[in-house]
């Protein structure tokens, strides 16, 4: 049934529309018009998800639109919507001659993610993975003549391509061990894990590990976050990771035979180390974006607690966490973009006395920081609580304790940022330069954090609904 592809058709329509309009629109207005057009159509798409709901559990070939994929697609749409809103001014003012390409590449990447979380075949899986990744390499270096951009592009590309290679090799080994590329057939044919299968699977997981930047595959992330354009990083820090985690869930629950405890132990170790490394390395950072980069490594550690739980609750809580994380982390990077847009730098020391000069902006950042740090009563608190609850239910209380203790370190550096804004003073001028799109995107993030902080039940029920489809 072709209907299963309806969400992908929506994105494809956007890409082609952008492509066509690129020829007709005047150069100096292109960024704004295309940006708002795409944002509105993405918002329309998000609203249409109520209608797309009717097509759940349809499939075409090895492409399944199940509830889990549906929920993640909603997340990609929201992230793309916020990301595009937040980058309109950047595209218009700082990109020359490549304005439409920015949106097209971003949407292509969303298309890749959208297919990735739906695919139940390793060939489709790999193609979707590359469709998601390749535009991101281009986007990270899109400020072509910027001093940092080729370096960022090269580092991100080399690590990404390397991970793709490892993944591809891993898939070939899994194919060798099972004789199939189809998830369902592999699960039906493989009863015990042979060394060949295990090697392939670990290589596959490492490849995914690069994408979601878990320890020990995290080293590319801070550099990329520091060098790439902020409003793009807002998107990069959320959507590809969500896609990667969705894919990891799918391969763990739909490819691995039921005796998967060793692999879950592997994930426990990755989780513990990611939390540790991310939080500790974030402490000495001087640059806001690098700090957020390291903190997002730690967040992946928290999310992996839910993965390691290996239960329906675990999956649901990860979906919950991803939504909360989307609002908070995108908000944080949009704040960084505002700061850069105003004073051209993003060092933490430049935030001194911001609360006096830009009270509303600082208050929003304070809320975002509290959400990232998991302080009640904002969305991030529920996310962390639920993930730990799922972890302890699965007997991982030591991991939850480890995470809870390390989240003190996290709060410590989040509060350092808050301290710069609220407690310290500086004479330097700060005239907030926040264009309309950025403002709207920021308002959406704050509204999301507060809304799901006060009414977590809505998101909770949605996550549970989504998680049910992965485990039969």
């Amino acid at each position, binding site marked *: 049934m072709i209907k299963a592809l309806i969400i992908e058709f929506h994105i494809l329509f956007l890409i082609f529309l952008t492509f066509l309009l690129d020829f007709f629109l005047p150069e100096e207005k292109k960024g704004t018009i295309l940006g708002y057009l795409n944002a509105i159509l993405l918002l329309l798409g998000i609203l249409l998800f109520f209608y797309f709901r009717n097509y759940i559990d349809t499939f075409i070939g090895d492409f399944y639109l199940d509830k889990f994929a549906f929920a993640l697609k909603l997340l990609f749409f929201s992230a793309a919507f916020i990301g595009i809103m937040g980058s309109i001014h950047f595209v218009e003012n700082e990109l020359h001659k490549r304005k439409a390409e920015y949106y097209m590449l971003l949407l292509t990447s969303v298309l890749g993610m959208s297919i990735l979380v739906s695919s139940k075949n390793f060939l489709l899986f790999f193609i979707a993975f590359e469709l998601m990744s390749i535009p991101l390499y281009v986007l990270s270096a899109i400020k072509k003549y910027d001093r940092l951009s080729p370096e960022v592009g090269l580092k991100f590309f080399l690590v990404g391509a390397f991970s793709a290679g490892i993944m591809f090799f891993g898939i070939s080994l899994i194919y060798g061990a099972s004789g199939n590329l189809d998830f369902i057939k592999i699960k039906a044919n493989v009863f015990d894990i042979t060394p060949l299968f295990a090697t392939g699977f670990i290589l596959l997981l490492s490849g995914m590990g690069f994408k979601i930047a878990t320890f020990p595959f995290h080293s590319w992330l801070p550099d990329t976050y520091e060098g790439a354009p902020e409003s793009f990083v807002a998107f990069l820090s959320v959507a590809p990771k969500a896609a990667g985690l969705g894919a990891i869930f799918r391969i763990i629950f739909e490819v691995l035979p039921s005796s998967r405890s060793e692999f879950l132990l592997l994930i426990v170790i990755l989780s513990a180390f990611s939390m540790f490394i991310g939080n500790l390395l974030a402490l000495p950072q001087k640059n806001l974006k690098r700090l957020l980069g390291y903190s997002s490594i730690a967040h992946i550690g928290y999310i992996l607690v839910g993965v390691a739980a290996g239960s329906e609750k675990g999956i649901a809580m990860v979906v919950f966490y991803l939504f909360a994380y989307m609002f908070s982390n995108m908000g944080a990077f949009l704040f960084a973009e505002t700061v850069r847009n105003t004073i051209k730098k993003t060092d933490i020391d430049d935030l001194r006395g911001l*609360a006096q000069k830009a009270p509303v902006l600082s208050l929003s950042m304070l809320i975002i920081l509290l959400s990232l740090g998991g302080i009640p009563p904002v969305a991030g608190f529920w996310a962390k*609580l639920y993930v730990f609850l799922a972890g302890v239910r699965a007997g991982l209380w030591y991991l939850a304790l480890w995470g809870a203790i390390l989240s003190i370190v996290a709060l410590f550096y989040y509060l350092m940022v808050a301290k710069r804004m609220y407690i310290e003073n500086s004479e330097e001028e700060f005239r907030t330069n926040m264009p309309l799109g950025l403002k709207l995107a920021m308002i959406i993030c704050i509204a999301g954090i507060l809304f799901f902080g006060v009414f977590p*039940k809505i998101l909770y029920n949605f996550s549970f609904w989504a998680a049910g489809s992965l485990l039969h």
Partner: protein
Amino acid sequence: MNIPLLFVSPAICSILFFFIKEEKRNLIFNLSLLFSLIPFLLSFYFLKIFLFNPLTKITLFTCSINGLKFAFLIESFSFILIFLNNLLFPLSIYFSKDDILFRIKEFNIWMLFSQSALNLLFLSDSLLPFFIFWEFSIIPFYFLIGIWGGERKKIANYKFVFYTLLSGAFLLTGIIGVLTGFFDEKSKIGFLLFSLAFAIKIPLFPFHTWLPDAHTEAPTAGSVILAGILLKMGTWGFYKFLLKLFPVAFLFYKNLIIFLSIFSIFYGALMSFAQEDLKRLIAYSSVSHMGFVIFGLCMEKISGIQGAFFQMFNHGIVTGALFILVGILYKRTHTRKLSDFGGISKIVPRFSFYFVLFSLATIALPGTSNFVGEFLVIFSGFFTKILYGVILSFAPFFAALYALKAVKRTLWGELKNKNLLTLPDLDLKEKVILISLTFFVILLGLFPHPFLYLTYR
């Protein structure tokens, strides 16, 4: 004390502040005083109910979000702490009127928010809201100490935040364990996680190092609340959750906790005696007093629990008053060193009167409310084990060491510092604050019946 009212009143006040200029100091302080008095007046309504029947339990709000219970309930024990909370907040806001000189809007917003958070914390009947407000109470104090604190506020703030967050981490893990049914009443790990969290907050002996710094460097209003209310979060959690969740594991660790609490009593008193900074001296005395509270709670005798709650209330009043007195001195002389004072009793007789009064209350002189509290605790100690009672009977002597040292070095003796000759005595505002606190000390000292009636089971 309607739950929405608690949430809404600081929010309304913050919105009102939005329209008021920073220059209108009086208006801002009067508004926030008014909003912080609302819950205080409301609590008299509950006082009437509980004096009628102390066993009443009024459920204010319950709901369950995804299987996690949220219950808010008021009973006579939590009422005592809520009453104390709503008494101390208006007084300290009132005191700050000429103590806090800059960024007053923010100051009042943080104060009002922490008042509501603490009210809600004492109202929580289930673990999750308790934890939520436990964590939330850090944020206002982070800014109160950080922005309006003293010279060494940086290090004090680090210590305060680090220790409190650490306690939050232990508490979170413990709570998650309990909610998932992983820790039952026999679980030693669960008990240790909870008791570590509370021991940091109370603070018990090895975990107390954050307290002197934070209390000394906070602005006066902050110190009053830190000592008066924030320490009670720990003892309240100890009474409300720890003893009820892990009764079996508690028996196993009971002696250790009793030992630590006795050690805290004497250690705190001796450390207090050794201080040269007046505020630090009072801060250390808190360690000593909180030891009494924990000891009383551990006795599992009704007189012990009564005494412990009596002491919680007294400690809030008396230590709060002492911090305010030191704040008065500091505001005028900009020093807190004992060596800078001496012989001011003739210059500021009214100040000296209150200083002596509250110092004697710390020693638990008969006639002050502290006497009743400490007597009840020691009494329960004698009933459990004669040895405990005998050891505790020495505690007032140790308290006399530091309290009389403070009195002697500040008020009596020769006047060495000539700058102090022009020291002004108490003004009207300070008198109002101190008289209202004295009222409780003397009233409950001579006539403790209503309190004992409220806590009797």
